[in-house]
């Protein structure tokens, strides 16, 4: 048997990655792993100071190149600038990871329509907007991978967290449609649904000590990005089974549950 090491068409690339929401808890761990693989990274997040610290950190951890682009992605007006920067300064990117989100106290969004709309905008509307910009580019280039972090909370609306949940659930639906649209072009779309993870976003929740460690979740995510599969990733894996069970609880019972 002869070996042809130069022809490995089944090994999809994961070299040049854009991370939207690069300073979020899960994104940080994903970036550690990508840096250790020697990836090139373009990081987008609000704070220039945090991005600068992250840039030096990831370069020392092995990233081949780290570009930073400070922007508040909840403001759709900035999206075009981010997109242009990526195309001009980071051409040939092969992977986009959307990792930003917000989880306000549900009670606040119940009493304030402004907060409710903010929450839907950050987690759903703005995400759709920026994903659409990049989707067109990936589609034209007929390659690459778009991944976005949604949540198991989006699989069923619950009393205590349905605002965040509905936004994430809607984003999951959006990604489902996008996946179908981009399939003919050979562009992969991965929906990442983590269970509860120990990150700054969940610090205020009870029982946080039992949540998954972000580095384990990040390992699953990087593995999926590398393989360009599965279409929908539950992490830790057990959440696929838990959510299957939860989705099968009849609504008449479910509406009485207080969680």
């Amino acid at each position, binding site marked *: 048997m002869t070996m042809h090491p130069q022809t490995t068409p089944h090994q999809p690339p994961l070299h040049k990655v854009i991370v939207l929401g690069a300073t979020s808890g899960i994104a940080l761990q994903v970036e550690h792993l990508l840096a250790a693989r020697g990836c090139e990274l373009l990081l987008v997040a609000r704070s220039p100071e*945090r991005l600068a610290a992250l840039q030096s*950190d990831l370069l020392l951890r092995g990233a081949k190149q780290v570009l930073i682009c400070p922007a508040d992605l909840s403001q759709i007006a900035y999206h075009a600038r981010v997109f242009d920067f990526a195309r001009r300064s980071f051409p040939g990117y092969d992977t986009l990871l959307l990792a930003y989100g917000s989880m306000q106290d549900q009670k606040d969004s119940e009493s304030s329509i402004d907060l409710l709309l903010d929450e839907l905008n950050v987690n759903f509307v703005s995400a759709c907007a920026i994903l659409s910009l990049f989707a067109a580019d990936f589609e034209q280039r007929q390659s690459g991978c778009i991944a976005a972090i949604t949540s198991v*909370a989006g699989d*069923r609306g619950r009393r205590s967290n349905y605002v965040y949940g509905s936004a994430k659930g809607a984003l999951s639906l959006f990604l489902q449609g996008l996946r179908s649209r981009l399939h003919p072009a050979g562009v992969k779309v991965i929906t990442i649904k983590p269970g509860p993870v120990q990150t700054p976003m969940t610090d205020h929740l009870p*029982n946080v000590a039992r949540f998954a460690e972000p580095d384990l979740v990040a390992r699953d995510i990087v593995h999926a990005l590398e393989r360009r599969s599965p279409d929908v990733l539950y992490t830790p894996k057990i959440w696929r089974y838990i959510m299957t069970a939860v989705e099968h609880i009849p609504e008449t019972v479910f509406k009485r549950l207080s969680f």
Partner: protein
Amino acid sequence: MTGQSAAHLKRKPEALRATDKYVSWGRYPAVVHRHVYKPAWNDQIPSIIEESPTASLLPYGLGRSYGDSCLNADRSLIDCRRLNRFLGFDESTGILRCESGVTFADIIDLFLPRGWFLPVTPGTQFVTVGGAIANDVHGKNHHCAGTFGAHVQQLGLYRSNEGLLTCGPNQNAGLFHATIGGLGLTGVIAWADIQLRRVNGPWIDAELVPFHSLSAFLDLSNQSDGRFEYTVAWLDCFAGRNPRGIFFRGNHSAESGKIFRPKRGPELPFALPAWLLNRYTVKAFNTTYYRAHAARKGSSLVGYDAFFYPLDSVRQWNLLYGKQGFLQYQCVLPQASLAAFEELLDRIARSGLGSFLGVLKQFGDAPPVGMLSFPRPGLTLALDFAMRGQRTFELLRSLDEVVLESGGALYPAKDARMSPALFDSSFPRWQDFVPYIDPKMSSSFWRRVTEAK
């Protein structure tokens, strides 16, 4: 990015609140914290300090201090583990700048492959840079390299009144020397510049020498200190004043080609029943340990992990001691007081409460860098004692008498019970340290040994 849902799907007992995870390595004392802040970025620290009342905060790293110096009962902790960024490295000088939550394991993983190693390391790689500075930790190379603090070039410190200050030997020098070994009480370390040292690879030329008496140990130690960068001894303290032991010595090897695979051991999943460790099982363990190592006497090439961090291969080994935890006793006695040292070993042997982790090392005479640094010329002995309530406390009190009388000292990082009098005689300069304490900082240890409220 997760829903609350997940959190509530499984019913969780009240006992598992997040702050319950904040214990010290000895798991004694068990305390409750009012709040634990978990900043992910240095820029969050000033607001945490600002919103907190006087004497209410303490930085926390990986919780490898054994007693209560990393605890702040009924007050708050700042968990610094997410502050783990490398901020810069100068390949020409070997100076690394990093945040306080970076761990020694992180530094080794990243810099050993490039030919750099820690200038000083304690017996575990699972400590943070902030914790190593706050306890001014020492290692097997104390006789050559001094403490970790001696290799900190400068550091950034958040203070409640002054904001972020840069401290070094030539800038805010008083605060610098107070922060090294300052038990986290002088403020929150934002970053530190650490001088790494060049090595050829992960290998140590190590040598094991069995010995059968204290004087034999001293001879070995004196002969070895000039020729070996690293020296330490394991001691079977059941034997009284003529203890047997194994002397470990080594140097970084010139070997660089051989493939190195880090060892990954098991993890103890839960606290073992306390009765499992009794004088018979520990004696049996010590005999087995001694024989196994005596049989391997001589030179060999070993990985840095096996040489420096043998206990790290069993993660959570502290759970061996059961739910009640254990106390570690680490003292240093001046060189001249060998009789006192023998008295110490006698008292331990008579008590029958011996431990399987007796560690003996002769410190060098490098001047201390920190105002509260523990290492000083003399012999240091570290022992673990399973927590058995009154009996354990009485033995340790009787050891305190010997230490106090000989002019020795106890190590705050290992302590959960020393008296204010012993602290005072161990650290005669502590009153000079007090003005450098940040008004927002305090700890269980500090309140105990200074009898502050």
